[in-house]
């Protein structure tokens, strides 16, 4: 079933700044098949989050657009669920209620009350969080919060799951645990996933394809690397796998030998932050 599921077609975006428009992305084009796990990797500030936000519909591309199953998308929706970097759980709702809010919103009129409850529990089981149903986000650890965030996104039954550096804020051990969990879930659900990361190992371990982005301004796709490693993958066996190490080396050399300059990073971050604020207002 290797048909194009999601297409980014010549996506460019400009952000207005006091000193004139700033072009963050230039002609980003990408085709993703159903069930594919794609990582976007690049230096911080290269606009990978911007790509994700455009796919999510949170930003509008200045030119070009996103086509999902043959239809253009330009507003956010639960079929493109997002796992945010900093979990973004509502602090006043318990683990259960956070997932329930999404389920109630997405399946209103489609599922009965009991089915909704079962669906919430099912998704919390997937991420192994059923032991903390009544806990508030402030009462659970960072890794647990991210698990609940993933459960909330999965519970929306998205056609595309968008993950914005989902494990970026976690310590290495917790991150490894969550990566393993994610691979397991992925084996079962076979979602189409776009994940942003700046971690080379994470990208190689999880992805079917790695999309490497050049630095901004006017960032675009530099190279695409197909990862043809057998699944299920095991991080320990892979560490001595020659192919795995070749893939790693390919990504590393792209990032540090050919696109290592970081002068523009700060400026881009500032612009992105400003846009975030103006979008929020």
């Amino acid at each position, binding site marked *: 079933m290797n048909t194009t599921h999601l297409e980014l077609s010549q996506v460019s975006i400009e952000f207005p700044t006091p000193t004139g428009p700033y072009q963050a992305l230039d002609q980003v084009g990408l085709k993703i098949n159903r069930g594919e796990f794609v990582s976007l990797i690049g230096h911080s500030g290269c606009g990978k989050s911007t790509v994700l936000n455009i796919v*999510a*519909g*949170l930003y509008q591309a200045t030119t070009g657009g996103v086509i999902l199953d043959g239809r253009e998308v330009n507003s*956010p*929706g*639960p079929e*493109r*669920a*997002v796992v*945010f970097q*900093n979990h*973004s759980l*509502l*602090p*006043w709702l318990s683990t259960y209620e956070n997932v329930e*809010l*999404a389920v109630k*919103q*997405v399946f209103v009129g489609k599922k009965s009350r009991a089915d909704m409850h079962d669906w919430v529990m099912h998704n919390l089981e997937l991420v192994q969080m059923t032991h903390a149903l009544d806990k*508030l986000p402030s009462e659970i650890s960072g890794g647990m919060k991210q698990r609940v965030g993933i459960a909330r996104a999965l519970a*929306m039954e998205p056609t595309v799951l968008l993950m914005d550096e989902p494990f970026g804020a976690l310590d290495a051990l917790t991150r490894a645990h969550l990566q393993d969990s994610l691979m397991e879930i992925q084996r079962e659900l076979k979602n189409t996933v776009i994940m942003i990361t700046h971690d080379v190992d994470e990208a190689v371990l999880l992805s079917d394809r790695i999309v490497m982005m050049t630095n901004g301004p006017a960032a675009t796709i530099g190279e695409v690397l197909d990862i043809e490693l057998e699944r299920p993958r095991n991080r320990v066996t892979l560490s001595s796998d020659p192919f795995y190490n070749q893939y790693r080396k390919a990504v590393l050399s792209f990032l540090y030998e050919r696109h290592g300059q970081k002068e523009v990073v700060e400026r881009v971050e500032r612009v992105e932050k400003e846009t*975030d*604020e103006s*979008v*929020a*207002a």
Partner: protein
Amino acid sequence: MNNVKLMLYATKLLQPMITLYSNGISRQQLRTTVAKVGIPFIGILVFLIVWAGAAPKIDTSLGEFPGPGEVWEQTTNLYAEHQRERDREERFYQRQEKRNAAKLAEDPNAEVKIRNYTGKPTFIDQIGTSLYTVLAGFILASLIAIPVGILIGMNKHLYAAFNPLIQIFKPVSPLAWLPLVTMVVSAVYVTNDPMFSKSFLNSMLTVLLCSLWPTIINTAVGVTGVSSDLTNVSRVLRLNWWTHVRKIIIPSAIPMMFTGLRLSLGIAWMVLIAAEMLAQNPGLGKFVWDEFQNGSSNSLGRIMVAVLVIGFIGFILDRSMLALQRKVSWDKSVEMR
């Protein structure tokens, strides 16, 4: 489930007593008890001593400034007066009933009237009136201020439109509003069978006008501060406007909202006393003014009682808001200060 929670809660509450019971009083506990109860007690004691020492040295045309002893005496007096007045009222109604019963026995078709007792309101009555007025004004103000605050917090343009008005009206003293409110009420509120007395409306509206602003401003600030991540969650979920307000905006803004409400209630209470004094509207303010005009040798002591009661009620009101906040807000980290 709930029962278990309740039990846990009860155990937690009783924990100090339970440990006390099982271990006897430990040194550590003794120290915390002393710190919690003893130090504030010392503070009050020092204040009373300074007060008692300084009061007799201040001579006024109405005699010495009242010390703690005289204030206590007047407190009991005021309470006794209240009891007497209640007795009188009860007897008044009893007499009336007896008369009416006799009348009806004579002629079953006789028209009977019940006349209201028109005695002078006591100190306790005035406290009641003031509390009722302040709560009415404050609740009404909050019902206006919270929605307005949410709306202007959510919309940049509305905020820009309202902001200059808020900034100008916020610093206006209640006493400037009072004449206007009085004139408008007596011009507009014309009915033969009034549900509220005009004086109540005057005080209440003045309180309302002054206690709107802190709640509006703080609610708006709280709403603007909703994190953009949560707004994004709401957008991805396609929450409609109303659900967005209920599930995201209001819970986020609740801590700031309560900051505003507490400020408003504090202002409301201060404003009310001043308004009652100036407008001769029933309440604690009028009591103070009447005593001042009365100028008996007891007056200063009675005013001092009123001052302390006003302070104490203000304190209780603030604490009640804090307790309410703790009950309503998800953010349990709020300090009880």
